[in-house]
């Protein structure tokens, strides 16, 4: 029972690559088949372990971009120049390759429809997601799960990215997502532009009075700036959960 659940999470499993496709200019989507995957909660991540012929090992964490309802696991990997792992996962890995991974991991940065249904006290409070760049990955799982479960929890995503071509998860983000472009804006763009600031948060996210449960994910500078601004606006810090991806410029 509990021990079996523990065993599964600790075990390194072999994942077969079903697909590796470029979803945006910098980000690839890896679709993996993991037999006997125990399921996961939206927001959790996996650790991928790579072993070279000389025994050298590299490990990296990736948020699961797919909801538990989808049998395959989806990871979104941003190729970072000079990185050791991301160029391999985006440019080299191909169908039928085997990757080792462990998970699902993390109970802190998760949201699920079932938990809301079971939670009489907080389950009706809206959920606000704020994403910077590839930090949208765990939120793709949450948003897709929300729709598939027909959850009655009010949920919104504010998603900041460089250009329209960089938007991930187009088939999933739907009508509850506000996208803001920070680098390049097409002439016919009707959405938001510029960085996420106090004004945009006040206009595009659940107000303080709604007592939203807030999740912020992206590069460390993005997360810290948004979190500080949310607190300045009056949101309760104990209801803001953060997942920092580290320095966005750091090779990985």
């Amino acid at each position, binding site marked *: 029972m509990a021990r079996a659940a523990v065993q599964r999470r600790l075990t*390194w499993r*072999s994942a077969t690559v079903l697909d590796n496709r470029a979803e945006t200019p910098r980000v690839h989507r890896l679709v993996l088949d993991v037999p006997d995957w125990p399921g996961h909660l939206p927001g959790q991540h996996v650790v991928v*372990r*790579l*072993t*070279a*012929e*000389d*025994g*050298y*090992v*590299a490990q990296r964490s990736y948020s699961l971009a797919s909801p538990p309802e989808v049998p395959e696991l989806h990871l979104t990997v941003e190729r970072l120049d*000079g*990185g*050791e792992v991301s160029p*391999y996962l985006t440019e*080299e*890995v191909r169908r039928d*390759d*085997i*990757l*080792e991974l462990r998970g699902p991991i993390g109970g802190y940065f998760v949201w699920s429809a079932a938990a809301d249904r079971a939670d009489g006290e907080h389950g009706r409070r809206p959920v606000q997601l704020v994403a910077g760049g590839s930090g949208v990955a765990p939120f793709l799982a949450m948003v897709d799960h929300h729709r598939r479960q027909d959850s009655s929890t009010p949920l919104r995503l504010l998603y900041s990215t460089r250009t329209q071509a960089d938007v991930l998860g187009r088939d999933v983000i739907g009508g509850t997502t506000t996208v803001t472009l920070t680098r390049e804006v097409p002439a016919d763009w009707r959405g938001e532009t510029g960085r996420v600031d106090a004004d945009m948060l006040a206009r595009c996210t659940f107000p303080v009075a709604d007592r939203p449960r807030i999740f912020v994910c992206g590069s460390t500078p993005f997360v810290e700036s948004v979190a500080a601004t949310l607190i300045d606006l009056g949101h309760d810090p104990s209801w803001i959960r953060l997942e920092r991806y580290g320095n966005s410029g750091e090779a990985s």
Partner: protein
Amino acid sequence: MGVLSRGFRRGRRDRSDGRLPPGQYDVGDDFPVLSAGPTPHTPLSRWDLSIDDETGRRVRWTWEEFRALPREPITVDLHCVTTWSKFDTRWEGVAIDTLLQDVETDTGFVLARCDGGYTTNVPLEDLIDGRAWVVDTYAGEPLAPEHGGPARLLVPHLYLWKSAKWLRGLTLLDHDEPGFWETFGYHNYGDPWREQRYSGD
């Protein structure tokens, strides 16, 4: 060993000139920033450097006094326990020999103390005779906070965790006092050429 990942290889550089200690790689132009805690930001007006001997006597310099001490350029290789090495790094600073000129001591042990609480221990003989400095300039520029500025210890013949960042003082002791990493499974001495990374190596 794990399942082999087809086509994966380490993105690390080797060197053939004998300057790379075992298990290290050449990080090239990069200068990784590794830290165990937040960057301290002590204003220079409040900064001082002190040396305490085993009787509690203290020699102290303010920033202006430190900057007025005889200083020299230093070019050395750095070796970090996380396996990167960086070659021909250029620094400027004051030799520990200079700082110890007015200090009389019978002890053999030193504990470096830093803003933010970091500590590391080094035998006194590894800091003297031109083996170590307190440096405040890197590559011709004032030492950046993330690399240990305003001033850090530089002990290039040992792993880089001994070159304590944000240095504020050296305490001379009659016994060895393991520091932040030495109390957590890292080698007490840390010679990269004998690959002394962990306690028990």
